[in-house]
């Protein structure tokens, strides 16, 4: 594993075991809830049981009387204490913003909205006391469904957003798309629901805060994917704590999937409480709180019209989507159903015209924001489900219809109809490889034989595109982002040649401590054990944007790469000085700086690093030390792609679907660590397949979450999933010097339509064209009964 000078094994591309694993498999990791400080106190939040109500009064007397209780605060206490609302981080034209108070002051707008907080010396005492807080609510009418919320007379969520419309957003050429559909030989029309989901990272959200009067510094440990974003927004906008007196640490974080990007009320409250009480305060969510308060994902209702010419070529696409935003706008919420969705509607197909319009709508439900894929799965599901319906309408094989419409490999960089420019791509080989792996022709024979015996097999194809590392900052700023989307990477070389890397990316399962170390060990030809990767602590790392949107490899990895290049250049100049040679005559190879053509005239890496810190002999003007920081702002996104195929059997007597096989051929550009990339894909596939079959966050008409626990919400289990058969093609990205694209969300994007298409393929003998996901046994069984009632099947 270790690289020795002169015998250098390239680590880029190597399936290395993860360096972070030992602490996790021995129980020695430090998750936020594991943090215990002297004098720790514990917070429990009192939450609204109603979706919409006015707070008439809050009586905290009984709660305050519980032994061990230190304090009880309400939303009014916090507002009077100067705590402001939590802002949205992405603005759209004419958007209606919300006043999102950490604790509700006079109105609650979703079940789970926090109204008070109890702090006690033990978690049990805090819990007991929270149950004794008496809140007098005046219940008001509620609306949970976004389409109903747009109807005249619907209950209003915010006074400043008439008709509950937060924004109306459009992209593409309306007139061109309408003309294209008018002139099309066939227009496939479909109405699709992309249901609401809950991320459910297995580690519940948690935070702990401590204030030091000696240094006037506040430290917050928090389950965050982006600690600097937390510090900036909480410091600058919500709490008014100067950034240089505020340290945010995201220690080991147990999965995020988007849900740990955002600034949550509990984190604000706990940071405020620790100064107020002069004691460390910790809060850890119960799972039921995760269901009610972690930002949800998806929740789109869409009308789709896809036109085709007489040869089965796509002629135009028009999409109208209603996106449920929930009760408040959280950090990325406005961007997810717009710039991360509408811009992906070109998919992998050569559409001559596209028009998309989106209404973002407030409802009395938990806020909706980025969840693994964030907009891109919604776009991919819409395209791939419609493609399959079109194949049936046009009586074409679904593989053939896709093949006919792919953007050709010679068309890159490709300007889409919806603003993006795809960096590189070659889609057809992923389809052909996946068809071969699954044995497509043979499958159709088996399917026919099985049907004759009353068994219903189905196969579903999905070819997806993903957009990673959203950038550059100037562009996202012009589109409404209130932040830049670059990343930082510092490489600190110590006098002995050992290396500490400080990255603005954050790993919460992605394995950066391994993959980033592979990059560094490779470039510097040093043993990987000589490299330490530090992330997640604003007290140690430079300002960074964190990890979401499959950006760490492409953006964070490149920032580190840039610093390595600068270090090597400085090292070369210093070595040349020490060797009395010209810098251009010195090369760095296999851990050694040497004069070209005279390999024995050289200096080892550690000799040069020591010389940099001794500074006894430096070139004129060179500063001592060996440390570089880079901020990488990409020129474009990267666009991974691939084809996934699911094979299912539907038991029509029960409606139950069994996933028999799952084949995935992905192209994520160059791969740093294939084991880690495959692992990311496996997990993504499981989440997307679960959206197709089981997961569904659903509310009743009063705004009560009906799937509010793991007993009701269908998180996939080991016995429900097959093993995954994966392969890849490699089309490097020209955007960054590593040629990497991103793999974190690809599986989720691809798998939902693949599995849904497979189930609908199995049900095709019943004349069932479409059912909305999740395709639960009850829904499938009912559809089969209805079809049989009409004499089908």
């Amino acid at each position, binding site marked *: 594993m270790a690289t020795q000078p002169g015998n250098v094994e390239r680590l880029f591309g190597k399936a290395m075991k993860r360096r972070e*694993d030992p602490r996790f498999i021995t129980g020695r990791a430090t998750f936020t809830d594991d943090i215990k400080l002297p004098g720790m106190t514990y917070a429990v939040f009192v939450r609204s049981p109603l979706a919409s109500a006015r707070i008439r009064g809050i009586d905290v007397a009984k709660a305050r009387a519980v032994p061990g209780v230190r304090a009880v605060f309400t939303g009014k206490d916090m507002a009077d204490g100067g705590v402001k609302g939590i802002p949205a981080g992405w603005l759209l034209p004419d958007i209606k913003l919300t006043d999102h108070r950490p604790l509700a002051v006079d109105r609650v707008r979703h079940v789970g909205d926090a109204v008070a907080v109890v702090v006690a010396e033990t978690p049990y005492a805090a819990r007991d006391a929270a149950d004794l807080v008496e809140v007098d609510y005046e219940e008001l009418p509620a609306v949970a469904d976004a389409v109903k919320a747009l109807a005249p007379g619907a209950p209003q969520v915010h006074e400043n957003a008439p008709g509950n419309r937060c924004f109306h957003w459009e992209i593409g050429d309306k007139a061109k798309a309408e003309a294209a559909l008018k002139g099309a030989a066939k227009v496939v029309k479909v109405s699709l629901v992309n249901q609401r989901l809950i*991320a459910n990272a297995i580690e519940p959200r948690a935070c702990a805060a401590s204030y030091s009067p000696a240094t006037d510094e506040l430290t917050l440990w928090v389950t965050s994917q982006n600690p600097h974003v937390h510090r900036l927004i909480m410091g600058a906008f919500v709490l008014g704590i100067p950034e240089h007196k505020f340290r945010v640490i995201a220690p080991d974080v147990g*999965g995020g999937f988007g849900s740990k990007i955002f600034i949550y009320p509990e984190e604000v409250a706990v940071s405020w409480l620790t100064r107020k009480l002069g004691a460390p305060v910790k809060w850890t969510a119960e799972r039921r709180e995760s269901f009610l308060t972690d930002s949800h994902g998806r929740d789109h209702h869409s009308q789709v019209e896809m036109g085709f010419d007489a040869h089965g070529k796509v002629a135009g696409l028009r999409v109208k989507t209603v996106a449920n935003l929930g009760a408040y706008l959280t950090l990325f919420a406005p961007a997810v159903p717009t710039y991360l969705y509408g811009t992906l509607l070109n998919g992998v197909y050569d559409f001559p015209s596209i028009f998309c319009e989106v209404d973002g709508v407030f409802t009395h439900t938990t806020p909706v924001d980025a969840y693994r894929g964030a907009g891109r799965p919604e776009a991919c599901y819409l395209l791939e489900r419609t493609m399959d319906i079109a194949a049936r309408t046009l009586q074409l094989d679904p593989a053939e219809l896709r093949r006919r419409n792919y953007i050709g490999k010679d068309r890159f960089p490709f300007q889409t109809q919806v603003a993006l420019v795809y960096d590189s791509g070659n889609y057809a080989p992923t389809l052909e490889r996946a068809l071969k792996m699954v044995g497509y022709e043979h499958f159709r024979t088996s399917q026919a034989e099985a049907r004759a015996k009353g068994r219903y097999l189905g196969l579903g194809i999905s070819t997806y595109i993903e957009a990673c590392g959203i950038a550059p900052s100037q562009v996202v700023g012009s589109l409404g982002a209130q932040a830049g989307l670059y990343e930082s990477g510092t490489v600190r070389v110590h006098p002995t040649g050992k290396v500490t890397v400080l990255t603005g990316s954050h790993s919460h399962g992605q394995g950066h401590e391994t993959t980033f170390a592979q990059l560094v060990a490779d470039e510097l030809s040093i043993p990987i054990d000589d490299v330490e990767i530090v992330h*997640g602590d604003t007290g140690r790392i430079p300002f960074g944007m964190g990890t979401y949107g499959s950006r760490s490899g492409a953006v964070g990895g490149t920032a580190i790469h840039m610093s390595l290049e600068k270090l090597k250049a400085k090292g070369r100049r210093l070595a040349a000085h020490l060797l009395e040679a010209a810098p251009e005559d010195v090369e760095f190879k296999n851990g050694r700086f040497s004069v070209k053509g005279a390999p024995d005239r050289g200096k080892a890496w550690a000799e040069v690093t020591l010389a940099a810190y001794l500074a006894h002999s430096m070139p004129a003007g060179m500063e001592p030390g060996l440390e570089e920081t880079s901020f990488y702002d990409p020129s474009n996104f990267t666009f991974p792609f691939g084809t996934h195929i699911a094979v299912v059997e539907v038991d029509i007597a029960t409606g139950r679907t069994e996933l028999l096989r799952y084949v995935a051929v992905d192209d994520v550009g160059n791969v740093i660590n294939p084991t880690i990339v495959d692992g990311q894909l496996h*997990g993504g596939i499981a989440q997307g397949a679960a959206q197709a079959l089981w997961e569904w966050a659903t509310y009743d008409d009063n705004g009560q979450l009906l799937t509010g626990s*793991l007993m009701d919400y269908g998180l996939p289990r080991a016995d429900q999933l097959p093993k995954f058969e994966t392969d890849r093609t490699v089309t490097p990205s020209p955007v960054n010097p590593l040629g990497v694209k991103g793999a974190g969300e690809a599986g989720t994007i691809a798998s939902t339509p693949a599995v849904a298409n497979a189930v609908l393929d199995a049900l095709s003998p019943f004349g069932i064209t479409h059912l909305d996901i999740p395709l639960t046994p009850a829904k499938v069984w009912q559809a089969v009964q209805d079809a049989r009632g009409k004499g089908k099947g």
Partner: protein
Amino acid sequence: MARISLKVNGTQHVHEVEPRMLLVHYLREVLSLTGTHVGCDTSQCGACTVLLDGKAVKACSVLAVQADGSEVKTVEGLAQDGRLHPLQEGFWEEHGLQCGFCTPGMLMAAYGLLQSNPHPDEHAIRAGLEGNLCRCTGYHNIVKAVQHATKTMAEGTSKTAAPARTVGAA
């Protein structure tokens, strides 16, 4: 308060606890054995799985007083004699974890499974671990990790030394 006496990872402990205290809270809060995690409040996720008198149990569903007089083994007690347990080795070798939060419970549930069935096939592994949720891996590599461990256990013991240190995040 109730007095309990139990052995955890080979060490005897005696404490006064609230009768309502859950075993998982006793392990985490009183003994500071934070390797055992809490992922839900309805005993669905299995992150808190430990061995109670040799049987895998969800420590969120056992009161500390119910463990009085018992022996408990947690993830911290898995490695023995300076070597990782074959299951720990299997999870490391086969990339059976990503964020690592479900891992301790997954390891202890797999330990319980292998005690009752030392040679489970893929179906039996999946069925045996259906009480433990993982959101990162899609279970693919967890199955491979358990298969790796069964092979190692059939051949002898783990070859991987328990790490003296672990590379760390912040």
